[in-house]
């Protein structure tokens, strides 16, 4: 089977990948124990999978395929508990967040697999700087044409997901002033960005073959786009979210993506238009820099408005879909934080202001990930 044959998925199924940080307990810097941890997790029965990522300070959780938010959230809880438990045996702390606040990229060791070695050789320091942690959301599509439409239409909502997931204000020991500094590290790659404006799957395949013939890419894996079709899974994969600080938030983000996809694919509210890519870079920057306090240009209505208003309207707009998917509570939790103007990035800054140390900020973030209740004395 050709890698570009689009495997048809049952519509709107859901899966999540989470890249997680492994921190040492004595100084909360990134550790180098992924291999040892993975060896332990290999002996634990898990509903999803746990995989190595590019550096030895990182692992990736992959959930199985779900129909809705409830089972996804439950499975993420189980996997989170297993990883925290096994990491505890090695005295490691597991954290969410899009970046580690103070690690030094030069200290990162690349996980010794062929593919990752190749990436290191090709991209040099970018590969180590790419020690950033994202959440990927997969939405099942029935056909390649559906996937192409969904990629174009979801692009309008990319800033929503950036702002809602933003959890990387600190990078290399500095407050970057961004809500999501992780995106900046992703942007440096030559094949980052977005899918070109193609009309359908046939045109996409034509584009892909041309790129491959020119030697720009070898496989779909080489495109680091914000949203890309994933023909082998039969999904559209959103890759713009920072890994949130809790699995609950990760599941809520997936639920929002699913509700949006249901609305877009079932109602086809408008045809895909090239215009969405005109304002994409501006919107993306606003969301990464200012998060929920950013501005947003609606590419279809051609007007500028606060991003938070646009998110609240969109959440309200997909309420019927959320009700049908039984994820109204998840979307309600997102809306509540938007109204408060509060994201994981704000939580991290708040903790840093309170405890005065990035190491202790990582400690608290790991406790939050593990589901510990914060101590009253803070």
């Amino acid at each position, binding site marked *: 089977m050709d890698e570009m044959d689009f495997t048809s998925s049952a519509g709107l199924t859901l899966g999540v990948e989470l890249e997680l940080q492994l921190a*040492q*307990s*004595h*100084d*909360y*810097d990134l*550790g*180098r*124990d992924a*291999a*040892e941890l993975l*060896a*332990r997790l290999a002996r634990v029965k898990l509903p999803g999978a746990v995989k190595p990522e590019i550096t*030895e300070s990182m692992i990736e959780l992959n959930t199985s395929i779900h129909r809705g938010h409830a089972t996804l959230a439950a499975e993420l809880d189980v996997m989170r508990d297993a990883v925290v438990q096994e990491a*505890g*045996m*090695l*005295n490691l702390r597991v954290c969410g967040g899009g970046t580690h606040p103070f690690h030094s990229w*030069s*200290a990162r*060791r690349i996980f*010794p697999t062929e593919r990752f070695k190749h990436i290191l050789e090709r991209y040099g320091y970018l590969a180590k700087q790419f020690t950033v942690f994202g959440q990927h959301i997969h939405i099942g599509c029935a056909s390649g044409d559906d996937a192409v439409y969904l990629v174009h239409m979801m692009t309008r909502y990319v800033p929503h997901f950036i702002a809602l997931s933003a959890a990387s204000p600190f990078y290399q020991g500095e407050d970057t002033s961004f809500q999501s500094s992780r995106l900046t590290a992703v942007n440096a790659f030559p094949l980052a960005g977005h899918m070109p404006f193609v009309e359908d799957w046939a045109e996409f395949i034509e584009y892909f073959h041309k790129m491959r013939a020119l030697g720009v890419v070898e496989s779909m894996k080489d495109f680091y786009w914000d949203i890309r079709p994933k023909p082998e899974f039969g999904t559209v994969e959103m890759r713009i979210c920072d890994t949130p600080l809790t699995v609950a938030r990760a599941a809520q983000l997936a639920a929002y993506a699913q509700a949006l996809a249901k609305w877009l694919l079932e109602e086809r509210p408008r045809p895909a238009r090239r215009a969405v890519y005109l304002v994409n870079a501006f919107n993306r920057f606003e969301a990464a820099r200012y998060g929920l306090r950013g501005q947003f240009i609606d590419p279809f209505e051609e007007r500028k408005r606060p991003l938070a208003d646009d998110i609240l309207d969109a959440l309200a707009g997909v309420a019927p879909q959320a009700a049908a998917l039984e994820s109204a509570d998840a979307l309600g939790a997102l809306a509540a934080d938007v109204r408060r103007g509060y994201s994981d990035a704000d939580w991290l800054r708040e903790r840093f202001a309170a*405890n*005065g*140390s990035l*190491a*202790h900020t990582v*400690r608290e973030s790991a406790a939050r990930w593990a589901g510990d209740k914060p101590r009253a*004395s803070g």
Partner: protein
Amino acid sequence: MSLGFLPQLPPAFGQPALFGALLLAGLLGGEGVRRLLGLPRITGYVLAGVLLGPQVSGLLAPGALGEARVLIDLSLGLIVFELGHRLDAQWLRRNRWLFVAALAESAFCFGAVLAVLLAFGFEPLLAATAAAIGTATSPAVVLLVAHELRAAGQVTERMLVFTAVNSMLAYVALTLLLPFLHLEHAMSWREALLHPLYILGGSALVGFVASLSLLWLAGWVGKREDRQFILLVALVVLAVGAARSLNLSVVVTLITLGMLARNFDYEHVLLPLRFGYGGQLFFVILFVLTGASLEFTAVPAVAAAVGAFIIARYLGKSLAIVAFGRLSGVRPATAGLLALALQPMSGLAVVMVLDTAAMYPAFGGELGAVVLSAVAVLEILGPIATQFALKRAGEADPAAGSA
């Protein structure tokens, strides 16, 4: 014309000149050995000490070594404080097999060395004393190699935990053997029993009080690295001084201080510990002075016993670590490297031998020679073994050089 302001000749150089000269000698030795032979710098520090010491040039006379004891105690104090600080009680509670493995590592090692020394016909009491000293891994070597390689991972973490546990247990065993040595020297029962209690209880108490003071003051100065650094050094030096004045054990006091400071920090007031370049000074001093105290002349005479001592020590440590490796949660290869990393013996053992021999000259004879010769051999091979283990385990920072 009177020139009374001129010094007498030859001028008497005091502690500051000694301190500077030791540092300079260590630096030159360390860099020389690394560049010319590609060996860890620690080996060079030790060789510089050997060259300065009574064995070769005699620049450091035995008397000077006595005067330098305060430097040794300060250095060792700082080092075991840091080691104690890496002993995370929560980890041992969560991973009980790790605790079992650490206890077994000390017990097996003690047993194996004791058996071998008995087989060589040493008196049981003295053999047990030597075995207790052999149980300890050198805190200075493992910490310095870990620092210089900027190592991180399971071998590194476990190496530090096991070293903290075996150093502590070695000291406790050595202290508990005291009553028997006392009795052999016809002291009263009361004195024989009270002395170890005084040392262990007193050291623990000083460490406890110092840790509470440290945490309280750290909370007050806040999370500022520069201030916390001064505070740490101040309390460590104070605790070393108190332990010396009260005839307590510097090692037990400081390891207790480090351990309690880490594990009683419920309010999270302490920043991660970083002694940086300042801390390295004390490592260099300790290794140079250890080198000056080494005895190579006796090695040929007791070679067989020394060889057996080293092999038994290695087998004892490996057996326990490999046996409990899986249960404590690491792969067999990791366990093997961990056993290798724990081989170094150094300044701590020298101090233990000197202290014991000071009280019981009988120990200073042949058995002292066996232990000091083993230290001499492991002083050279130990750092190489540790460095190899950490690099092989993939835990060295690729950007860091060699130790």
